[in-house]
């Protein structure tokens, strides 16, 4: 087939046009109102002001929300990275029959609504209290732990929601590892822990890092899980923006929260992907040379 010059542009034009009208324009419009003044009885006022950002940056109420969002996202990221990496290694070493079954079980929940998965945790933590019953039965805990409406509960549920992303990305990078490397380590007398620590984890590092970046970004902007498990008092950025838009109706302030979240999110994703790519491209180039 003889490629025509205009063909690829014409083919991608419909999708790009839809993005220009229905993605770029709405985001620009929300960025614009974040610079406008809000009157409680007059609504959004014309003009230009930085007061919404000033309030978000100076008010300790918002500092607390930013701090909580960041802390929850950081803890969830570490938990997902550790648990997801080990599970991916275990899956990688299984028989192909068991491997495909368990891969289905681990990745399948990604296709089930977050509302359903979070409801499951609300049931385990709250109404049935099964988690606490199990914890008390082990004898390690003297009294029940408060999971509902606590940071701990949000962390556990979010880890469950997001850990498949690390499993899949580590699993994908393990697929590219030459099994001979591990056999060589065994032949040289390395124990199982040493092999995981010195061979498998370093080789899987690009997958661990890129999975963790995705988890961090999704955890920092999560809405359903903090709203259901955290409740109204434990606010994160997403639930605070929800309140400003649908309860207080202070759209300019909510818009500034959304812009801060968007900018932070894009910065984290773009810079970390750059860093990971640069670092590991160098490694791969070296080993190829």
């Amino acid at each position, binding site marked *: *087939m003889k490629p025509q010059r205009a063909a*690829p*542009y014409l*083919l*991608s034009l*419909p*999708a*790009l046009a*839809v*993005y220009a009208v*229905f*993605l770029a*324009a*709405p*985001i620009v419009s*929300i960025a614009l*109102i974040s610079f406008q003044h809000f009157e409680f009885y007059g609504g959004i006022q014309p003009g230009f002001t930085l007061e919404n950002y000033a309030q978000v940056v100076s008010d300790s109420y918002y500092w607390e929300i930013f701090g909580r969002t960041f802390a929850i996202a950081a803890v969830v990221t570490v938990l997902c990275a550790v648990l997801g990496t080990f*599970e991916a*290694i*275990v899956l990688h*070493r299984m028989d192909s029959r068991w491997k495909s079954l368990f*891969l289905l*079980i*681990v*990745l399948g*929940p990604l*296709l*089930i*609504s*977050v*509302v359903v998965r979070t*409801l*499951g945790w*609300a*049931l*385990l933590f709250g*109404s*049935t209290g*099964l988690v606490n019953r199990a914890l008390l039965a082990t004898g390690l805990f003297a009294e029940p732990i408060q999971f509902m409406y606590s940071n701990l509960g949000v962390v556990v549920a979010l880890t*469950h929601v997001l*850990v498949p992303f690390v499993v899949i990305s580590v699993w994908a990078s393990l697929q590219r590892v030459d*099994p001979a490397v*591990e056999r060589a380590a065994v032949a040289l007398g390395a124990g*199982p822990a040493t092999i995981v620590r010195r061979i498998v984890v370093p080789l899987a590092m690009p997958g661990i890092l890129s999975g963790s970046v995705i988890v961090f*970004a999704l955890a*920092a*902007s999560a*809405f*359903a899980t903090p709203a*259901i498990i955290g409740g109204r008092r434990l606010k994160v*950025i*997403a639930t605070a923006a*929800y309140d400003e*838009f649908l309860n207080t109706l202070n*759209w300019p302030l909510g818009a500034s929260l959304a*812009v801060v*979240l*968007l900018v932070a999110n*894009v910065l984290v*994703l773009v810079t970390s992907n750059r860093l990971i790519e640069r670092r590991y491209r160098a490694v791969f180039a070296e080993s190829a040379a």
Partner: protein
Amino acid sequence: MIRNGPVALAFHALFIGFIVAPLLIVCVVSFTPLGYISLPTDGISLRWFAAILDNPRFISAFWISLALGLVSSFISTLLAVPAALAVARFRFRGRDAISALLLSPLMIPHIVLGVSFLRFFSSLGLNGSFAGLVIGHVIVILPFALRLTLAAATGMDPAVERAAVSLGASRLTVFRRVTLPLILPGIVSGWLLAFITSFDELTMSVFIASPSTTTLPVRMFLQIQDTIDPMVAAVSTLLIAGTVVLMLALDRLVGLERLFVGKARR
């Protein structure tokens, strides 16, 4: 090949338990014969499944989500297929930029999309309308449809198309008889993933749905915020069952791991 030791298998068992437990409890609780959340210790009952049928708000939310998922996944697939072919089959100036742009909604938190659409649609008088929901969902799910079609089109051998041309087939015939059948599994799985993503979407829809266009996840979210009763669990059980069926279909079609990594293995 190194085998898993006992420690690894014990970890694996705990991990699988952690993954399955919340889904399992939802299913178990939905069979309770009692009027409140409880484990069905004395007998099981289908009363909460029957209760769904008597609840018009959940029934209409289901139909809205179904229609929304079908319409928006259809539109996004129509937009994604030509774009995927452009990126996969041509080398042109701006190719990397265009493909990054097409995937860019993946980088935007849904809460940000939600408030942006709320503002934008309000100024157009579209807020709360079905059309508004369709537009929002098309934007969110297009990258999913695109990625899988792209993987299929990239993995395809261009020599097959050249062979068809050299045998005298017209451009249209080549597309219809050669290209399309070869990338069809990618298109279908992209469409399915787009549909599921639309059907499950909460965070953006919660801003742009009105009481008459409330989707199922939004309905469930609002209900759970209010009170958790066994009926929400019953709805969730049905959703889990439906997702398992679609998931097995997708697994047959492309392999679940490829679905999420988004790359064709050749």
